[in-house]
Protein backbone atom coordinates (compact mmCIF):
# COMPACT_ATOMS: atom_id res chain seq x y z
CA UNK A 1 0.00 0.00 0.00
CA UNK A 2 1.23 3.43 -0.98
CA UNK A 3 1.10 5.73 2.04
CA UNK A 4 1.47 9.46 1.37
CA UNK A 5 4.51 10.92 3.00
CA UNK A 6 2.42 13.54 4.74
CA UNK A 7 0.49 10.75 6.45
CA UNK A 8 3.72 9.16 7.53
CA UNK A 9 4.97 12.42 8.98
CA UNK A 10 1.65 12.91 10.72
CA UNK A 11 1.97 9.51 12.32
CA UNK A 12 5.51 10.21 13.39
CA UNK A 13 4.31 13.42 14.95
CA UNK A 14 1.44 11.89 16.88
CA UNK A 15 3.70 9.12 18.16
CA UNK A 16 6.32 11.59 19.27
CA UNK A 17 3.70 13.74 20.93
CA UNK A 18 2.17 10.76 22.72
CA UNK A 19 5.53 9.63 23.91
CA UNK A 20 6.44 13.06 25.22
CA UNK A 21 3.09 13.15 26.94
CA UNK A 22 3.48 9.80 28.65
CA UNK A 23 7.15 10.24 29.48
CA UNK A 24 6.30 13.50 31.17
CA UNK A 25 3.46 11.93 33.14
CA UNK A 26 5.66 9.04 34.13
CA UNK A 27 8.23 11.50 35.41
CA UNK A 28 5.61 13.54 37.24
CA UNK A 29 4.33 10.42 38.97
CA UNK A 30 7.67 10.01 40.69
CA UNK A 31 6.65 12.93 42.88
CA UNK A 32 3.97 11.45 45.07
CA UNK A 33 0.66 13.26 44.99
CA UNK A 34 1.44 15.64 42.14
CA UNK A 35 -1.01 13.97 39.75
CA UNK A 36 -4.03 12.36 41.42
CA UNK A 37 -5.36 8.85 40.78
CA UNK A 38 -3.92 5.87 38.91
CA UNK A 39 -1.66 6.62 36.00
CA UNK A 40 -2.05 4.27 33.07
CA UNK A 41 0.22 4.94 30.09
CA UNK A 42 0.82 3.38 26.69
CA UNK A 43 4.55 3.89 26.42
CA UNK A 44 5.73 1.71 23.53
CA UNK A 45 2.24 1.15 22.15
CA UNK A 46 1.88 4.47 20.37
CA UNK A 47 1.85 2.97 16.89
CA UNK A 48 -1.59 1.52 17.43
CA UNK A 49 -3.40 4.77 18.19
CA UNK A 50 -1.33 6.73 15.68
CA UNK A 51 -1.71 4.26 12.82
CA UNK A 52 -5.42 3.82 13.41
CA UNK A 53 -6.29 7.47 13.80
CA UNK A 54 -4.20 8.51 10.81
CA UNK A 55 -6.41 6.24 8.72
CA UNK A 56 -9.58 7.88 10.03
CA UNK A 57 -11.31 11.08 9.08
CA UNK A 58 -12.23 13.61 11.76
CA UNK A 59 -15.88 12.55 11.60
CA UNK A 60 -15.03 8.95 12.37
CA UNK A 61 -15.62 7.95 15.95
CA UNK A 62 -13.28 6.23 18.38
CA UNK A 63 -14.30 4.50 21.58
CA UNK A 64 -11.41 3.98 23.93
CA UNK A 65 -10.54 2.54 27.30
CA UNK A 66 -8.44 3.06 30.42
CA UNK A 67 -5.25 3.29 28.31
CA UNK A 68 -6.52 6.15 26.20
CA UNK A 69 -4.03 9.00 26.10
CA UNK A 70 -2.25 8.07 22.91
CA UNK A 71 -5.52 7.26 21.13
CA UNK A 72 -6.97 10.62 22.04
CA UNK A 73 -3.89 12.62 21.12
CA UNK A 74 -3.71 10.83 17.78
CA UNK A 75 -7.38 11.64 17.20
CA UNK A 76 -6.53 15.30 17.71
CA UNK A 77 -7.51 16.00 21.31
CA UNK A 78 -6.06 19.16 22.79
CA UNK A 79 -3.11 18.25 25.05
CA UNK A 80 -3.96 21.08 27.43
CA UNK A 81 -7.52 19.92 27.97
CA UNK A 82 -6.36 16.34 28.40
CA UNK A 83 -3.57 17.20 30.79
CA UNK A 84 -5.81 19.44 32.85
CA UNK A 85 -8.35 16.63 33.10
CA UNK A 86 -5.63 14.18 34.11
CA UNK A 87 -4.75 16.69 36.79
CA UNK A 88 -8.48 16.77 37.67
CA UNK A 89 -8.69 20.50 37.17
CA UNK A 90 -11.75 22.51 36.23
CA UNK A 91 -10.20 23.37 32.87
CA UNK A 92 -9.97 19.69 31.98
CA UNK A 93 -11.98 18.37 29.09
CA UNK A 94 -14.44 16.88 31.56
CA UNK A 95 -14.21 19.52 34.30
CA UNK A 96 -12.48 17.10 36.65
CA UNK A 97 -15.37 14.67 36.73
CA UNK A 98 -13.52 12.00 34.81
CA UNK A 99 -9.85 12.27 35.61
CA UNK A 100 -7.37 10.18 33.69
CA UNK A 101 -9.45 7.03 33.43
CA UNK A 102 -12.49 7.87 31.31
CA UNK A 103 -11.44 10.93 29.32
CA UNK A 104 -14.27 11.81 26.96
CA UNK A 105 -13.57 14.17 24.08
CA UNK A 106 -16.68 14.46 21.92
CA UNK A 107 -15.10 17.43 20.10
CA UNK A 108 -12.82 15.00 18.27
CA UNK A 109 -15.44 12.27 18.12
CA UNK A 110 -14.06 10.33 21.04
CA UNK A 111 -17.17 10.57 23.19
CA UNK A 112 -17.36 7.20 24.92
CA UNK A 113 -14.46 6.12 27.06
CA UNK A 114 -14.90 3.43 29.66
CA UNK A 115 -12.57 2.01 32.20
CA UNK A 116 -14.79 -1.03 32.63
CA UNK A 117 -12.77 -3.60 30.74
CA UNK A 118 -14.62 -4.71 27.60
CA UNK A 119 -17.41 -2.18 27.94
CA UNK A 120 -16.27 -0.14 24.99
CA UNK A 121 -17.28 -2.77 22.49
CA UNK A 122 -21.07 -2.63 22.96
CA UNK A 123 -20.83 1.17 23.11
CA UNK A 124 -19.01 1.14 19.77
CA UNK A 125 -21.73 -1.07 18.35
CA UNK A 126 -24.23 1.59 19.33
CA UNK A 127 -22.18 4.35 17.73
CA UNK A 128 -21.76 2.36 14.53
CA UNK A 129 -25.43 1.54 14.51
CA UNK A 130 -26.24 5.25 14.54
CA UNK A 131 -23.86 5.80 11.63
CA UNK A 132 -25.51 3.05 9.64
CA UNK A 133 -29.01 4.18 10.61
CA UNK A 134 -28.31 7.67 9.35
CA UNK A 135 -26.52 6.39 6.28
CA UNK A 136 -23.45 8.41 7.12
CA UNK A 137 -20.07 7.76 5.57
CA UNK A 138 -18.36 7.33 8.91
CA UNK A 139 -17.02 4.42 10.87
CA UNK A 140 -16.39 3.66 14.52
CA UNK A 141 -13.19 2.22 15.90
CA UNK A 142 -13.11 0.51 19.26
CA UNK A 143 -9.78 0.16 21.08
CA UNK A 144 -9.54 -2.56 23.70
CA UNK A 145 -6.93 -4.79 25.29
CA UNK A 146 -6.20 -8.49 25.07
CA UNK A 147 -7.72 -8.91 28.52
CA UNK A 148 -10.93 -7.28 27.37
CA UNK A 149 -11.29 -9.98 24.73
CA UNK A 150 -12.19 -12.39 27.54
CA UNK A 151 -15.21 -10.38 28.68
CA UNK A 152 -18.69 -11.43 27.63
CA UNK A 153 -19.26 -7.98 26.15
CA UNK A 154 -16.64 -8.69 23.49
CA UNK A 155 -18.63 -11.67 22.31
CA UNK A 156 -22.03 -10.03 22.27
CA UNK A 157 -20.70 -6.96 20.52
CA UNK A 158 -18.89 -8.86 17.78
CA UNK A 159 -21.85 -11.07 17.08
CA UNK A 160 -24.27 -8.18 16.84
CA UNK A 161 -21.93 -6.06 14.74
CA UNK A 162 -21.41 -8.96 12.36
CA UNK A 163 -25.11 -9.73 12.14
CA UNK A 164 -26.02 -6.16 11.26
CA UNK A 165 -22.87 -5.50 9.23
CA UNK A 166 -22.14 -2.42 11.25
CA UNK A 167 -19.33 -0.08 10.22
CA UNK A 168 -17.13 -0.79 13.21
CA UNK A 169 -13.53 -1.91 13.51
CA UNK A 170 -12.55 -3.69 16.68
CA UNK A 171 -8.91 -2.91 17.37
CA UNK A 172 -7.39 -5.20 19.95
CA UNK A 173 -4.23 -3.76 21.36
CA UNK A 174 -2.58 -6.97 22.48
CA UNK A 175 0.22 -5.77 24.71
CA UNK A 176 0.87 -9.26 26.06
CA UNK A 177 -0.49 -8.48 29.51
CA UNK A 178 -3.79 -7.94 31.24
CA UNK A 179 -2.82 -6.57 34.61
CA UNK A 180 -0.20 -8.98 35.89
CA UNK A 181 -1.36 -11.82 33.68
CA UNK A 182 0.55 -12.76 30.58
CA UNK A 183 -1.53 -13.41 27.52
CA UNK A 184 -1.04 -17.19 27.76
CA UNK A 185 -2.25 -17.11 31.32
CA UNK A 186 -5.64 -15.70 30.43
CA UNK A 187 -6.49 -17.60 27.28
CA UNK A 188 -5.33 -20.50 25.15
CA UNK A 189 -6.40 -18.79 21.95
CA UNK A 190 -3.24 -18.31 19.92
CA UNK A 191 -4.32 -14.93 18.56
CA UNK A 192 -7.27 -12.84 19.62
CA UNK A 193 -7.93 -12.46 15.91
CA UNK A 194 -8.61 -16.21 15.74
CA UNK A 195 -11.94 -15.44 17.34
CA UNK A 196 -13.14 -13.53 14.29
CA UNK A 197 -14.11 -16.69 12.48
CA UNK A 198 -16.60 -17.44 15.23
CA UNK A 199 -18.47 -14.34 14.12
CA UNK A 200 -17.94 -14.83 10.41
CA UNK A 201 -15.96 -11.63 10.13
CA UNK A 202 -12.38 -11.04 8.97
CA UNK A 203 -9.72 -11.23 11.64
CA UNK A 204 -6.26 -9.93 11.06
CA UNK A 205 -3.04 -9.93 13.03
CA UNK A 206 -0.76 -7.00 12.47
CA UNK A 207 2.56 -5.91 13.90
CA UNK A 208 1.34 -3.29 16.32
CA UNK A 209 4.75 -1.66 16.53
CA UNK A 210 4.74 -1.01 12.80
CA UNK A 211 2.63 2.08 12.44
CA UNK A 212 2.52 1.76 8.66
CA UNK A 213 1.15 -1.75 8.87
CA UNK A 214 -1.49 -0.62 11.33
CA UNK A 215 -2.42 2.26 9.06
CA UNK A 216 -2.70 -0.02 6.05
CA UNK A 217 -4.86 -2.59 7.81
CA UNK A 218 -7.14 0.00 9.23
CA UNK A 219 -7.54 1.70 5.87
CA UNK A 220 -8.60 -1.59 4.36
CA UNK A 221 -11.06 -2.45 7.10
CA UNK A 222 -12.44 1.06 7.02
CA UNK A 223 -13.16 0.63 3.33
CA UNK A 224 -14.88 -2.65 3.99
CA UNK A 225 -16.99 -1.01 6.66
CA UNK A 226 -17.98 1.85 4.38
CA UNK A 227 -18.82 -0.59 1.63
CA UNK A 228 -21.37 -2.17 3.93
CA UNK A 229 -19.34 -5.34 4.43
CA UNK A 230 -19.37 -5.11 8.18
CA UNK A 231 -16.87 -5.20 11.01
CA UNK A 232 -13.27 -6.36 11.20
CA UNK A 233 -11.32 -7.63 14.16
CA UNK A 234 -7.83 -6.24 13.98
CA UNK A 235 -5.28 -7.47 16.49
CA UNK A 236 -2.21 -5.31 16.93
CA UNK A 237 0.63 -7.14 18.61
CA UNK A 238 2.55 -4.81 20.82
CA UNK A 239 4.00 -4.60 24.29
CA UNK A 240 3.34 -2.76 27.50
CA UNK A 241 6.78 -1.34 28.26
CA UNK A 242 5.70 0.14 31.58
CA UNK A 243 3.74 -1.57 34.31
CA UNK A 244 -0.04 -1.71 34.19
CA UNK A 245 0.02 1.62 35.95
CA UNK A 246 2.93 3.73 37.08
CA UNK A 247 2.74 2.23 40.56
CA UNK A 248 3.16 -1.29 39.21
CA UNK A 249 6.76 -2.49 39.71
CA UNK A 250 6.48 -4.90 36.75
CA UNK A 251 7.86 -7.68 38.93
CA UNK A 252 6.23 -10.28 36.69
CA UNK A 253 7.56 -8.94 33.38
CA UNK A 254 10.94 -10.52 32.54
CA UNK A 255 13.59 -7.83 32.22
CA UNK A 256 14.91 -9.41 29.08
CA UNK A 257 11.46 -9.22 27.55
CA UNK A 258 11.10 -5.55 28.36
CA UNK A 259 14.53 -4.82 26.97
CA UNK A 260 13.89 -6.66 23.77
CA UNK A 261 10.59 -4.90 23.17
CA UNK A 262 12.06 -1.53 23.93
CA UNK A 263 14.33 -2.31 21.03
CA UNK A 264 11.27 -2.62 18.80
CA UNK A 265 10.08 0.89 19.62
CA UNK A 266 7.74 2.10 16.87
CA UNK A 267 9.11 5.64 16.81
CA UNK A 268 12.67 5.04 15.61
CA UNK A 269 11.23 2.38 13.35
CA UNK A 270 9.20 4.91 11.42
CA UNK A 271 11.75 7.70 11.62
CA UNK A 272 14.52 5.42 10.34
CA UNK A 273 12.27 4.45 7.49
CA UNK A 274 11.56 8.08 6.63
CA UNK A 275 15.22 8.97 6.96
CA UNK A 276 16.20 6.11 4.70
CA UNK A 277 13.67 7.23 2.15
CA UNK A 278 14.94 10.76 2.45
CA UNK A 279 11.52 11.98 3.50
CA UNK A 280 12.71 13.63 6.66
CA UNK A 281 15.92 14.95 8.14
CA UNK A 282 17.35 14.36 11.56
CA UNK A 283 16.85 18.02 12.28
CA UNK A 284 13.20 17.82 11.41
CA UNK A 285 12.80 14.93 13.79
CA UNK A 286 14.59 16.85 16.52
CA UNK A 287 12.28 19.76 15.82
CA UNK A 288 9.24 17.55 16.15
CA UNK A 289 10.57 16.27 19.43
CA UNK A 290 11.25 19.75 20.70
CA UNK A 291 7.84 20.92 19.64
CA UNK A 292 6.15 17.94 21.32
CA UNK A 293 8.06 18.54 24.52
CA UNK A 294 7.15 22.20 24.45
CA UNK A 295 3.49 21.39 23.92
CA UNK A 296 3.49 18.96 26.78
CA UNK A 297 5.35 21.39 29.02
CA UNK A 298 2.78 23.99 28.13
CA UNK A 299 -0.01 21.53 28.88
CA UNK A 300 1.49 20.75 32.26
CA UNK A 301 1.89 24.43 33.10
CA UNK A 302 -1.68 25.02 32.03
CA UNK A 303 -2.90 22.12 34.14
CA UNK A 304 -0.85 23.07 37.17
CA UNK A 305 -1.94 26.68 36.99
CA UNK A 306 -5.59 25.75 36.63
CA UNK A 307 -7.86 25.64 39.64
CA UNK A 308 -9.56 22.56 40.97
CA UNK A 309 -13.28 22.58 40.44
CA UNK A 310 -15.31 24.08 43.26
CA UNK A 311 -16.76 21.45 45.56
CA UNK A 312 -20.38 22.21 44.66
CA UNK A 313 -19.69 21.69 40.97
CA UNK A 314 -19.84 18.03 41.87
CA UNK A 315 -23.60 18.38 41.74
CA UNK A 316 -23.62 19.55 38.12
CA UNK A 317 -23.68 17.51 34.92
CA UNK A 318 -25.66 14.56 36.23
CA UNK A 319 -28.82 15.46 34.36
CA UNK A 320 -29.51 16.88 30.93
CA UNK A 321 -32.42 19.24 30.93
Amino acid at each position, binding site marked *: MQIPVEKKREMLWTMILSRAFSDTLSELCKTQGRVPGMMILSTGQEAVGSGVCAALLPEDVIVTNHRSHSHLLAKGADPRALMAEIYCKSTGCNKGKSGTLHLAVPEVNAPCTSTVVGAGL*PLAVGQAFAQQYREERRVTVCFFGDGAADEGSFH*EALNLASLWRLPVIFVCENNLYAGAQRYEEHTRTRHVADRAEGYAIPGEVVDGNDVLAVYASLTKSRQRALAGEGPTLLECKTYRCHGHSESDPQHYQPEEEIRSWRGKCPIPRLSDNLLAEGRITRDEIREMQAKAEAMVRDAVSFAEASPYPLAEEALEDVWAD
Partner: protein
Amino acid sequence: MQQLGMGQAVNQALREEMRRNSEVFIAGEGVGVGIHVNPMFPTTGLLEEFGSKRVRDTPVSEAAIAGLAVGAAEAGLRPVVEIMFNPFITLASDMIVNHAAKLRYLSGGKSSFPLVIRVKTGAGFGAGCQHSHNLEAWLAHCPGLKVVMPATPADAKGLLKSAIRDDNPVIFIEDMMLYFAPGPVPEEEYLTPIGKADVKRPGGDVSLVTWGNMLGVAFKAAERLAQEGVEVEVVDLRSLVPLDTETILESVRKTGRLVVLHEATRTGGFAGEVSAVVMEHAFGELKAPLRRVTGPDIPVPASPTLERFYIPDEEQVVTAVREIL
Protein backbone atom coordinates in the same frame (compact mmCIF):
# COMPACT_ATOMS: atom_id res chain seq x y z
CA MET B 1 -62.62 7.14 25.76
CA GLN B 2 -60.69 4.20 24.34
CA GLN B 3 -60.13 1.29 26.73
CA LEU B 4 -56.65 -0.17 26.44
CA GLY B 5 -54.46 -2.60 28.31
CA MET B 6 -51.08 -1.26 29.35
CA GLY B 7 -49.34 -3.13 26.55
CA GLN B 8 -51.62 -1.46 24.04
CA ALA B 9 -51.03 1.92 25.63
CA VAL B 10 -47.29 1.38 25.37
CA ASN B 11 -47.80 0.37 21.77
CA GLN B 12 -49.63 3.61 21.01
CA ALA B 13 -46.94 5.66 22.70
CA LEU B 14 -44.22 3.93 20.68
CA ARG B 15 -46.19 4.37 17.48
CA GLU B 16 -46.84 8.06 18.05
CA GLU B 17 -43.27 8.86 19.00
CA MET B 18 -41.84 6.84 16.12
CA ARG B 19 -44.10 8.69 13.72
CA ARG B 20 -43.13 11.98 15.25
CA ASN B 21 -39.37 11.49 15.27
CA SER B 22 -37.40 9.35 12.87
CA GLU B 23 -34.53 9.11 15.35
CA VAL B 24 -36.59 6.89 17.60
CA PHE B 25 -35.99 3.19 17.02
CA ILE B 26 -36.76 0.11 19.04
CA ALA B 27 -34.65 -2.97 19.62
CA GLY B 28 -34.79 -6.10 21.70
CA GLU B 29 -35.53 -9.80 21.71
CA GLY B 30 -38.68 -10.42 19.73
CA VAL B 31 -39.77 -6.79 19.44
CA GLY B 32 -40.34 -7.34 15.72
CA VAL B 33 -41.28 -10.96 15.22
CA GLY B 34 -42.14 -12.53 18.55
CA ILE B 35 -43.46 -15.85 19.70
CA HIS B 36 -46.81 -14.30 20.55
CA VAL B 37 -49.19 -12.72 18.10
CA ASN B 38 -51.16 -10.78 20.62
CA PRO B 39 -52.59 -7.31 20.24
CA MET B 40 -52.30 -6.82 23.98
CA PHE B 41 -48.49 -6.87 23.76
CA PRO B 42 -46.45 -3.70 23.53
CA THR B 43 -44.64 -4.11 20.22
CA THR B 44 -47.26 -5.89 18.14
CA GLY B 45 -47.51 -4.46 14.64
CA LEU B 46 -44.62 -2.04 14.90
CA LEU B 47 -42.43 -3.98 12.50
CA GLU B 48 -45.21 -3.85 9.94
CA GLU B 49 -45.58 -0.10 10.27
CA PHE B 50 -41.97 1.00 10.65
CA GLY B 51 -39.98 -1.72 8.96
CA SER B 52 -36.91 -3.62 10.00
CA LYS B 53 -34.66 -0.57 9.98
CA ARG B 54 -36.41 0.91 13.00
CA VAL B 55 -37.73 -2.23 14.66
CA ARG B 56 -34.73 -4.39 15.39
CA ASP B 57 -34.90 -7.93 16.63
CA THR B 58 -31.67 -8.70 18.43
CA PRO B 59 -29.87 -11.85 19.48
CA VAL B 60 -30.21 -12.96 23.10
CA SER B 61 -27.51 -10.53 24.23
CA GLU B 62 -28.71 -8.18 26.92
CA ALA B 63 -25.41 -6.38 27.41
CA ALA B 64 -25.20 -5.67 23.69
CA ILE B 65 -28.80 -4.48 23.60
CA ALA B 66 -28.16 -1.97 26.36
CA GLY B 67 -24.78 -0.99 24.92
CA LEU B 68 -26.44 -0.41 21.57
CA ALA B 69 -28.81 1.99 23.26
CA VAL B 70 -26.08 3.86 25.11
CA GLY B 71 -23.81 4.24 22.11
CA ALA B 72 -26.60 5.16 19.72
CA ALA B 73 -28.06 7.66 22.18
CA GLU B 74 -24.73 9.43 22.53
CA ALA B 75 -24.65 9.66 18.74
CA GLY B 76 -28.01 11.41 18.80
CA LEU B 77 -30.58 8.68 18.17
CA ARG B 78 -33.39 7.97 20.62
CA PRO B 79 -33.27 4.25 21.33
CA VAL B 80 -36.09 2.48 23.11
CA VAL B 81 -34.81 -0.96 23.90
CA GLU B 82 -36.47 -3.81 25.71
CA ILE B 83 -35.08 -6.15 28.33
CA MET B 84 -37.55 -8.99 28.31
CA PHE B 85 -37.90 -9.65 32.03
CA ASN B 86 -36.64 -7.75 35.03
CA PRO B 87 -34.15 -10.38 36.29
CA PHE B 88 -32.33 -10.23 32.95
CA ILE B 89 -31.56 -6.59 33.57
CA THR B 90 -28.67 -7.89 35.64
CA LEU B 91 -27.03 -8.90 32.38
CA ALA B 92 -27.38 -5.37 31.07
CA SER B 93 -26.63 -3.68 34.37
CA ASP B 94 -23.04 -2.71 33.66
CA MET B 95 -24.21 -0.86 30.57
CA ILE B 96 -27.08 0.73 32.45
CA VAL B 97 -25.42 1.55 35.74
CA ASN B 98 -21.84 2.25 34.78
CA HIS B 99 -22.50 3.73 31.37
CA ALA B 100 -26.00 5.04 30.65
CA ALA B 101 -26.13 6.64 34.09
CA LYS B 102 -22.55 7.86 34.35
CA LEU B 103 -21.14 8.73 30.94
CA ARG B 104 -22.77 12.13 30.82
CA TYR B 105 -21.28 13.02 34.18
CA LEU B 106 -17.93 11.64 33.12
CA SER B 107 -18.01 13.82 30.02
CA GLY B 108 -18.51 16.88 32.20
CA GLY B 109 -21.96 17.39 30.73
CA LYS B 110 -20.84 17.32 27.11
CA SER B 111 -22.73 14.22 26.04
CA SER B 112 -26.26 13.18 26.72
CA PHE B 113 -27.97 9.82 26.60
CA PRO B 114 -31.60 10.08 25.58
CA LEU B 115 -32.56 6.44 25.81
CA VAL B 116 -35.35 4.38 27.27
CA ILE B 117 -35.02 0.87 28.59
CA ARG B 118 -38.36 -0.88 28.80
CA VAL B 119 -38.48 -3.87 31.08
CA LYS B 120 -41.29 -6.23 31.99
CA THR B 121 -41.75 -7.08 35.61
CA GLY B 122 -44.11 -8.61 38.10
CA ALA B 123 -45.15 -11.84 39.74
CA GLY B 124 -48.38 -13.61 38.88
CA PHE B 125 -47.68 -15.60 35.77
CA GLY B 126 -46.24 -18.65 37.44
CA ALA B 127 -42.81 -18.51 35.86
CA GLY B 128 -40.86 -18.30 39.08
CA CYS B 129 -38.05 -16.17 40.38
CA GLN B 130 -35.82 -16.06 37.34
CA HIS B 131 -38.62 -14.31 35.46
CA SER B 132 -40.36 -12.47 38.29
CA HIS B 133 -38.22 -10.20 40.41
CA ASN B 134 -39.07 -6.58 41.02
CA LEU B 135 -35.88 -4.56 41.05
CA GLU B 136 -37.04 -0.96 40.80
CA ALA B 137 -35.28 -0.14 44.07
CA TRP B 138 -31.93 -1.00 42.51
CA LEU B 139 -32.36 1.30 39.59
CA ALA B 140 -33.67 4.06 41.82
CA HIS B 141 -30.39 3.86 43.76
CA CYS B 142 -28.35 4.87 40.74
CA PRO B 143 -27.92 8.62 40.14
CA GLY B 144 -28.24 9.46 36.48
CA LEU B 145 -31.21 7.19 35.80
CA LYS B 146 -34.84 8.19 35.87
CA VAL B 147 -37.12 5.38 36.95
CA VAL B 148 -40.75 5.21 35.93
CA MET B 149 -43.27 2.54 36.86
CA PRO B 150 -46.80 3.29 35.71
CA ALA B 151 -49.90 1.77 37.24
CA THR B 152 -52.51 2.60 34.61
CA PRO B 153 -52.62 2.41 30.83
CA ALA B 154 -53.16 6.16 30.56
CA ASP B 155 -50.12 6.92 32.70
CA ALA B 156 -48.07 4.36 30.81
CA LYS B 157 -48.78 6.05 27.53
CA GLY B 158 -48.16 9.58 28.74
CA LEU B 159 -45.08 8.66 30.72
CA LEU B 160 -43.50 6.65 27.93
CA LYS B 161 -43.94 9.54 25.54
CA SER B 162 -42.26 11.81 28.06
CA ALA B 163 -39.51 9.26 28.58
CA ILE B 164 -38.78 9.08 24.88
CA ARG B 165 -38.52 12.86 24.69
CA ASP B 166 -36.40 13.09 27.82
CA ASP B 167 -32.70 13.68 27.26
CA ASN B 168 -31.78 11.39 30.13
CA PRO B 169 -31.77 7.62 30.38
CA VAL B 170 -35.13 6.43 31.62
CA ILE B 171 -35.92 2.97 32.94
CA PHE B 172 -39.52 2.23 32.12
CA ILE B 173 -40.93 -0.69 34.08
CA GLU B 174 -44.09 -2.42 32.89
CA ASP B 175 -45.89 -4.88 35.10
CA MET B 176 -47.00 -7.70 32.81
CA MET B 177 -50.15 -8.27 34.82
CA LEU B 178 -51.37 -4.86 33.71
CA TYR B 179 -51.23 -5.79 30.03
CA PHE B 180 -54.50 -7.56 30.51
CA ALA B 181 -56.35 -4.97 32.61
CA PRO B 182 -57.93 -2.42 30.27
CA GLY B 183 -58.45 1.16 31.36
CA PRO B 184 -59.36 4.47 29.77
CA VAL B 185 -56.74 6.23 27.66
CA PRO B 186 -57.36 9.68 26.14
CA GLU B 187 -57.49 9.73 22.35
CA GLU B 188 -55.79 13.07 21.92
CA GLU B 189 -52.06 13.60 22.26
CA TYR B 190 -50.80 14.14 25.83
CA LEU B 191 -47.67 13.84 27.89
CA THR B 192 -47.54 12.79 31.52
CA PRO B 193 -44.69 14.46 33.38
CA ILE B 194 -41.98 12.28 34.85
CA GLY B 195 -41.44 13.08 38.52
CA LYS B 196 -45.05 13.88 39.42
CA ALA B 197 -46.93 11.54 41.72
CA ASP B 198 -50.67 11.28 41.33
CA VAL B 199 -53.25 11.14 44.10
CA LYS B 200 -55.39 8.44 42.60
CA ARG B 201 -57.94 8.55 45.39
CA PRO B 202 -58.23 11.33 47.95
CA GLY B 203 -58.83 10.61 51.60
CA GLY B 204 -58.09 12.12 54.95
CA ASP B 205 -57.36 9.27 57.34
CA VAL B 206 -54.29 7.50 56.06
CA SER B 207 -51.84 7.88 53.17
CA LEU B 208 -51.26 4.74 51.14
CA VAL B 209 -48.24 5.25 48.89
CA THR B 210 -47.77 2.73 46.12
CA TRP B 211 -46.83 2.27 42.46
CA GLY B 212 -47.17 -0.16 39.56
CA ASN B 213 -49.39 -3.18 39.78
CA MET B 214 -50.08 -2.65 43.49
CA LEU B 215 -52.36 0.28 42.71
CA GLY B 216 -55.17 -2.20 42.12
CA VAL B 217 -54.60 -3.78 45.50
CA ALA B 218 -54.55 -0.31 47.06
CA PHE B 219 -57.91 0.50 45.49
CA LYS B 220 -59.49 -2.69 46.73
CA ALA B 221 -58.24 -2.07 50.23
CA ALA B 222 -59.37 1.54 50.12
CA GLU B 223 -62.86 0.49 49.08
CA ARG B 224 -63.14 -2.01 51.88
CA LEU B 225 -61.92 0.50 54.41
CA ALA B 226 -64.29 3.13 53.08
CA GLN B 227 -67.12 0.83 54.07
CA GLU B 228 -65.82 1.05 57.62
CA GLY B 229 -65.67 4.81 57.32
CA VAL B 230 -61.90 4.98 56.90
CA GLU B 231 -60.83 7.28 54.08
CA VAL B 232 -57.59 6.17 52.48
CA GLU B 233 -55.64 8.55 50.27
CA VAL B 234 -53.96 6.52 47.53
CA VAL B 235 -50.81 8.15 46.22
CA ASP B 236 -49.44 6.57 43.04
CA LEU B 237 -45.78 7.55 42.75
CA ARG B 238 -45.54 6.77 39.01
CA SER B 239 -41.88 7.83 39.06
CA LEU B 240 -39.40 6.71 41.69
CA VAL B 241 -36.70 9.00 40.32
CA PRO B 242 -37.24 11.89 40.39
CA LEU B 243 -39.33 11.30 43.47
CA ASP B 244 -42.21 13.66 44.06
CA THR B 245 -41.59 14.18 47.75
CA GLU B 246 -43.92 17.17 47.84
CA THR B 247 -46.99 15.15 47.00
CA ILE B 248 -46.04 12.44 49.49
CA LEU B 249 -45.43 14.95 52.25
CA GLU B 250 -48.57 16.89 51.53
CA SER B 251 -50.61 13.75 51.88
CA VAL B 252 -48.90 12.59 55.06
CA ARG B 253 -49.16 16.05 56.60
CA LYS B 254 -52.88 15.83 56.04
CA THR B 255 -53.45 12.27 57.23
CA GLY B 256 -50.65 11.83 59.76
CA ARG B 257 -50.48 8.17 58.85
CA LEU B 258 -48.43 6.26 56.25
CA VAL B 259 -48.63 2.82 54.69
CA VAL B 260 -46.29 2.00 51.82
CA LEU B 261 -47.21 -0.86 49.51
CA HIS B 262 -45.01 -2.54 46.94
CA GLU B 263 -44.72 -5.94 45.36
CA ALA B 264 -40.93 -6.10 45.61
CA THR B 265 -39.35 -7.85 48.57
CA ARG B 266 -39.26 -5.93 51.80
CA THR B 267 -35.66 -5.51 52.94
CA GLY B 268 -34.04 -2.74 50.96
CA GLY B 269 -37.22 -2.06 48.99
CA PHE B 270 -38.18 1.44 47.95
CA ALA B 271 -40.64 1.75 50.83
CA GLY B 272 -37.55 2.49 52.88
CA GLU B 273 -36.85 5.60 50.86
CA VAL B 274 -40.42 6.79 51.16
CA SER B 275 -40.40 6.29 54.89
CA ALA B 276 -37.06 8.04 55.31
CA VAL B 277 -38.31 11.05 53.38
CA VAL B 278 -41.42 11.22 55.54
CA MET B 279 -39.51 10.72 58.76
CA GLU B 280 -37.10 13.48 57.81
CA HIS B 281 -39.63 16.04 56.69
CA ALA B 282 -42.98 15.28 58.30
CA PHE B 283 -42.04 13.65 61.58
CA GLY B 284 -43.94 16.21 63.61
CA GLU B 285 -47.14 15.58 61.73
CA LEU B 286 -47.05 11.81 62.07
CA LYS B 287 -49.60 10.29 64.44
CA ALA B 288 -48.74 6.64 64.13
CA PRO B 289 -46.00 4.21 63.16
CA LEU B 290 -45.26 3.31 59.57
CA ARG B 291 -46.56 0.13 58.05
CA ARG B 292 -45.00 -1.52 55.01
CA VAL B 293 -46.94 -4.04 52.98
CA THR B 294 -44.54 -5.77 50.62
CA GLY B 295 -43.51 -9.09 49.21
CA PRO B 296 -41.78 -11.23 51.84
CA ASP B 297 -38.00 -11.65 51.72
CA ILE B 298 -38.04 -14.70 49.45
CA PRO B 299 -37.59 -15.32 45.74
CA VAL B 300 -40.90 -15.43 43.86
CA PRO B 301 -42.00 -19.08 43.97
CA ALA B 302 -43.57 -20.81 40.97
CA SER B 303 -46.45 -22.71 42.52
CA PRO B 304 -49.77 -20.83 42.41
CA THR B 305 -50.40 -21.20 46.13
CA LEU B 306 -46.94 -19.95 46.95
CA GLU B 307 -46.96 -17.17 44.42
CA ARG B 308 -50.29 -15.90 45.76
CA PHE B 309 -48.73 -15.92 49.20
CA TYR B 310 -45.86 -13.86 47.85
CA ILE B 311 -47.95 -11.13 46.24
CA PRO B 312 -49.29 -8.56 48.70
CA ASP B 313 -53.09 -8.47 48.84
CA GLU B 314 -55.75 -6.09 50.08
CA GLU B 315 -56.24 -8.10 53.25
CA GLN B 316 -52.69 -7.25 54.31
CA VAL B 317 -53.22 -3.61 53.46
CA VAL B 318 -56.47 -3.45 55.40
CA THR B 319 -54.77 -5.02 58.41
CA ALA B 320 -51.86 -2.61 58.18
CA VAL B 321 -54.17 0.38 58.02
CA ARG B 322 -56.26 -0.85 60.95
CA GLU B 323 -53.13 -1.33 63.03
CA ILE B 324 -52.21 2.32 62.82
CA LEU B 325 -55.60 3.95 63.08
